[in-house]
């Protein structure tokens, strides 16, 4: 994109910063070519890029079951869901690119391990019930995180989130419906659902990140309007939402400390194992190596296609010139 130089003289950095702060204070959106503090830009790139990586890596655990889905109906649904996650990744890379980075750079940072993705995708999908549990709990947690982001201060990020949120609702409902169907089946199927919920409940709580006391960056992100709720607020909301859903489904949640607190008007609950969480971030989760290896192979195996398409395009250009 070319920028026309219409401004007669450049404003001072302080004036620019004041205008940025005023835009945030008005609850207005920052748009791509507005002046913004370097810290704001970098925080956004880190957050959006790793959000994008999570969507792309997130296709793997469920993709594992596409070929083994029990019916054509379930296979079509799962394919559509996984395709949506690819779409989410692309909306987000597109938003990140408005900040002056390229998708290829970001992919290279992921492959080099210099950027991360959500640790939830480092858990294996051992049974078909996991497809339902992921839709219900993992996409459910994603909805809690992403709905407030529709109002985030950076325009392209918020707009991408609006598209994503519309699609997440399908993800969560198809998962929950899958589980209710299994719960109406045999004892063995009900046991499969319970076993799956037991494995995914704690990792789902970890999706909200460490407690607020350990998250010193939250205040800055909230002041910039990037973040709208703290990690603990979102986790509480998720627990309160999930308890009645679990009850309707007929499963128990594997937390002995989970109890309604009349005084607070919220559920009390236990803390997940944060050491396990950090191990996953450090690359030592159950499936980290497998996920990265798969992503790397897909990228490398696709290299000749990307090159051939470029060669074809430049030949067509030559032919019409």
């Amino acid at each position, binding site marked *: *994109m*070319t920028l*026309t130089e*219409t*401004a007669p003289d450049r404003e001072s950095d302080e004036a620019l910063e004041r*205008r940025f702060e005023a835009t945030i204070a008005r609850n207005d959106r920052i748009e791509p*070519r507005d*002046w913004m503090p370097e810290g704001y*830009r970098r*925080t956004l*790139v*880190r*957050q959006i890029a*790793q*959000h994008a990586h*999570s969507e792309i890596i*997130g296709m793997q655990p469920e993709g594992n079951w596409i070929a083994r889905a029990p019916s054509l109906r379930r296979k079509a649904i799962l394919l559509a869901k996984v*395709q949506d996650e690819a*779409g*989410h990744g*692309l909306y987000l890379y597109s*938003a990140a*690119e408005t900040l*002056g*980075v390229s*998708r290829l*750079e970001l992919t*290279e940072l992921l492959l080099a391990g*210099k*950027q*991360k993705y*959500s*640790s*939830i*995708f480092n858990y294996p999908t051992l049974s078909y019930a996991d497809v339902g549990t992921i839709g219900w709990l*993992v996409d459910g*947690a994603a909805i809690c*995180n992403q709905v407030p*982001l529709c109002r985030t201060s950076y325009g392209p990020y918020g*707009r991408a989130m609006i*598209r*994503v949120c519309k699609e997440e609702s399908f993800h969560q409902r198809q998962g929950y419906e899958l589980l209710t169907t299994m719960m109406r089946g045999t004892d063995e199927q009900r046991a499969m659902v319970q076993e799956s919920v037991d494995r995914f409940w704690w990792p789902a709580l*970890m*999706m*909200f*990140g*460490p407690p607020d006391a350990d*998250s010193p*960056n*939250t205040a800055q992100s909230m002041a910039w309007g990037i973040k709208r709720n703290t*990690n603990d607020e*979102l986790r509480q909301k998720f627990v309160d939402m999930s308890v009645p859903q679990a009850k309707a489904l007929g499963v128990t949640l594997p937390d002995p400390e989970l109890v309604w607190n009349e005084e607070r008007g919220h559920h009390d609950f236990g803390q997940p194992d*944060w050491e396990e969480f950090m191990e996953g*971030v*450090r690359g030592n989760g159950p499936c980290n190596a497998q996920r990265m290896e798969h992503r790397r192979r897909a990228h490398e195996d696709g*290299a000749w296609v*990307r090159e051939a398409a*470029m060669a*074809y395009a430049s030949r*067509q250009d030559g032919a019409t010139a």
Partner: protein
Amino acid sequence: MSDEPTGRGFTAEGGHGAVPLEGVASGVGIAPVEREWPLYEVFVRGKRGLNHVHVGSLHAADDRMALLHARDVYTRRNEGVSIWVVRADAITASSPDEKDPMFAPSGDKVYRHPTFYDIPADVPHM
């Protein structure tokens, strides 16, 4: 800043799970090794009677591929009846600032708005 996330500074709003905001690269100022497909901006007409609206961007080797990718990425649920794609480097844009002198000429021409004119309240259909 260390190379490894410290456990401090994770944001829940990494979408499908918390991601670290400390100890990871931002990517600002790094150039990729491989030559990337050009960037296209995508505009979609939601339904007949509406303008095309910008919805995002994508990479494609050529115009036709850009259209096909735009269909798959931006219209999976009947979001559009028509798509435009244009190479991002072919767009010329005004300077970003809303207070830019570029838009000043329209700022002081209040008489271009219908509310500028006082019409007696009992005059109908106006």
